[in-house]
């Protein structure tokens, strides 16, 4: 179907009747002090009447993964002592529509589905949220300079696993969109807004990423043999060991489980964890098999580019570029991919200035 841009809010209005619609927008925080300014953050927020929908332009700073896998998820409440009891907390049964998710982020949901729903274990919290979510993906129109999803095998114009795929209509100058249902859930969704259908049209699908990187197609296998390679020492030195890359990453899914205690009552919750943190692998006795940022960053890159391939048959880095854009030290996973592609896997030493060594 064809949807005029001016009808976008109408469409979300209609869809909001039966679901919470999450769409990319700018959250404003006003600074009331003299000379203060309003700060805006692009993020997925529940649709409210008249909300500005920021479909194009850069992607959101944080990925929409927390809609399926919240940053903090309460799992059960308990009472201790003589009247001990446990009360499970089940995620609410609310239909959600994820509107305007980019193909890179859609692919990240595919990866999370594999983690939480396959290999003989189904995470009930994730499963409950996942079955209630309908995805409307939007083909990128203005990739950022840090975007390299097409080098990672993802088409920035198309998200095959989305329920509905939405692209700018050819020749419309961005004033109209073509929506195509890929699944039954998607057909149902389009049925709801068919009163806004402006007829047939062709989708514009010619976006290419700005950043094209040179990646060994078998990099996962090559890296599997490079665990002790001297490249790790070199490329991890500039890291400051914060968790930014993991928390802005759409495919980082590690979590920790902890308690919140108030006297004889409490709550068990799980929350995002980061393999960049010192306590991630720290044992109760204090020993830590990943004592420095070298081992931690190596684990992150290996997980994205090799370990996940081994277990699930696909690369975990989707090339969204968020870690590249947000790293305080301006480290760049795409640069690492190129360096590892070029590196001799059996080298005894590694330098950034090759050919000049004595």
């Amino acid at each position, binding site marked *: 179907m064809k949807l005029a841009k001016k009808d976008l809010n109408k469409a979300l209005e209609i869809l909001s009747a039966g679901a919470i619609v999450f769409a990319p927008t700018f959250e404003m*925080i006003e*600074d*009331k*002090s*003299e*000379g*203060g300014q309003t*700060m805006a*953050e692009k993020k997925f927020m529940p649709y409210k009447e008249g909300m500005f929908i920021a479909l194009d332009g850069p992607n959101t*700073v*944080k990925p929409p993964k927390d809609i399926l896998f919240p*940053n*903090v998820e309460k799992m059960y409440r308990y009472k201790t002592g003589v009247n001990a009891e446990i009360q499970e907390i089940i995620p609410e049964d609310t239909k959600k529509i994820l509107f305007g998710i980019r193909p890179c982020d859609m692919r990240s949901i595919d990866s999370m589905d594999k983690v939480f729903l396959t290999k003989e274990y189904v995470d009930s919290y994730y499963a409950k949220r996942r079955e209630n979510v309908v995805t409307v993906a939007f083909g990128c129109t203005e990739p950022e*300079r840090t975007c390299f999803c097409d080098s990672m095998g993802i088409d920035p114009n198309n998200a095959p696993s989305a329920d509905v795929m939405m692209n700018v209509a050819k020749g419309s100058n961005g004033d109209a969109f073509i929506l195509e249902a890929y699944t039954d859930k998607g057909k149902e969704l389009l049925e709801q807004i068919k009163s806004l259908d402006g007829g047939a049209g062709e989708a514009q699908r010619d976006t290419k990423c700005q*950043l094209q990187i040179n990646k060994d197609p078998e990099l996962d296998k090559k890296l599997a043999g490079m665990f002790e390679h001297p490249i790790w020492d*070199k490329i991890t*030195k*500039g890291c*400051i*060991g*914060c*968790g*930014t890359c*993991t*928390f*802005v990453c759409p495919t980082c899914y590690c979590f*920790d489980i*902890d308690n*919140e*205690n108030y006297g004889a009552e409490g709550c068990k*919750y799980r*929350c*995002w*964890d*980061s393999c960049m*943190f*010192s*306590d991630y692998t720290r044992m109760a006795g204090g020993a830590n098999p990943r004592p*420095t*940022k070298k081992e931690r960053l190596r684990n992150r890159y290996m997980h994205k580019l090799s370990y996940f391939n081994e277990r699930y048959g696909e690369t975990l880095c989707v090339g969204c570029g968020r870690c590249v854009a*947000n790293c*305080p*030290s*301006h*480290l*760049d996973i*795409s*640069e690492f991919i190129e360096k590892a592609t070029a590196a001799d896997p059996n080298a005894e030493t590694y*330098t*950034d*200035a090759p050919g*000049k*060594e*004595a």
Partner: protein
Amino acid sequence: MAGLTEAQVQDRIREEAKKALATGEVSAVVGWTSTRFEDKTKPYFAETEAECDLLVWNKYCINGTGKFALDDRYPEKKIAIIARGCDSRALNRMLRDKQLKRENLYIIGVVCDGKENAVCEGCQHKNPLTYDVLIGEPVEEQIDADRFKEIEAFEKLSPDERYEYWAKQYDKCIHCYACRNACPACNCVECYADQYRTGWQGKAADREQNQVYGLTRAYHVGDRCIECGECERVCPMNLPIMRQTKKMLKDINDLFGDYECGLPDDAMPILGSYKLEDPDEFM
């Protein structure tokens, strides 16, 4: 830059870096190198003569270099740090806090004319304060008349308005600890926030725990902040973190007189020491 062009400074940096490595007493020289983006550089450890030629000097050299000296607290060799004014203050901070030993450092000071970084506008120390060798001619320092302007404006808001502002800011926080890891005053061997089992700091990134972290961080570094602005620069969620430490510094300046951290003759942190003549009107 007085005397030297950008390219000349870069040449001098490479030259001094090579000299330092050639002594055999230095394991690496920490400076900046280029990235694939013209307007970004990244911290870099040059460990060979050839790698020294990858060091760059331009207006995008914004990352602090001082904190990297803490990566190895018991080094076999010295570490050389290319230090602007702010980086030298960072090193002074860690020396004052007894986290580093001066004999383990080789400091290549570079007179800095400000970078593409908002915090540089209020810089009062373009000349490195501590160094073993200095590149560039020292320039006259400026006093920043607007040092606490933002704080004065913010103080005029009501407590409720200020609370609402910070609550919204800390709702954005993702608990990545970039502000802590970039901060030269955050130099504890083990941060309280990493000791989860103690129950001091919860791991959940919710309003409550984020604010606990924000407050603890601000109070802990407040009287030791060198105003390098790294906390605010590195924050992926754009929290105005400097506003907290600046408030602490402003109050200290109001109560105790001129106070700036990271100077070579730095006294004890003012809230970490006690004198009989300290003001106590509030008691």
